[in-house]
């Protein structure tokens, strides 16, 4: 998993998944179970699909959007 594309390209891991999120939030935002699960499933899919070493799969999420979704979930749960 990666949130730093240039670092990952430099290090050259055989398979990696890039999420354009803040450090410390590689699997999404608090209480957003569906997103957390989807990211893991994407990583598992990449494990099966990657053909060449060094392939980076970029996930089509937007930090601002998932943060809003997370805030809405927290509100629903009655959390601040």
């Amino acid at each position, binding site marked *: *998993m*990666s*949130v*730093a*594309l*240039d670092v990952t*390209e*430099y*290090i*050259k*891991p*055989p*398979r990696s998944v890039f999420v354009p999120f*803040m*450090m*410390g*939030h*590689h*699997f*999404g*935002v*608090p*209480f957003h*179970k569906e997103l*957390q*699960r989807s990211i*893991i*499933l*994407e*990583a*598992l899919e*990449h*494990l*099966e*699909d*990657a*053909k*060449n*070493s*060094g*392939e*980076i*799969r*970029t*996930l*089509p999420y937007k930090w601002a959007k998932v943060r809003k979704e997370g805030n809405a979930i927290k509100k629903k749960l009655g*959390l601040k």
Partner: protein
Amino acid sequence: MTETFKSKQLRSGLWNTVNERYPGSMITKDSYVPLANITKPISESRLTFVSTAGVQPKGTMPFDTVHPVGDYTYRKVPSHLKQEDLEIHQLKYPTFGANEDINVIFPIKRLQELADEGVIGGLTDHFFSFIGYNMDPTLLEETLAENIADAVVKDHADIALLSPA
């Protein structure tokens, strides 16, 4: 739509700068490690999780977060633990999300659910955790990484999910 690609360095001069400032602190790879093919379906594979998030079971020796060259130890995190059994000892990344829900950086509950549903064949008895602030790349690679790799093999992992913090 998910896209898979190889691209060029975005800031190619950056790593030279890091190496000038902290000599020897960067591990440099000139080639790609050959892909290890998976030997069985994911639904039959035992997964382990390796993290640099400084997550550890409550009551275990806290990571040394202030040592000038880092902490080269790791903690075993039993994979059956509940979120509330875990705590974080790491200063080098924003933990406000993880403090609310540790699954954002150490998705133990999500992995347990996927194993319970049979999406993953199972989980290793332990997950493995260390801190990412380690300024001696030789010690990091030849001691810590090797120790964790041995422990992962000993735990009969078929596949590994690795996440920095």
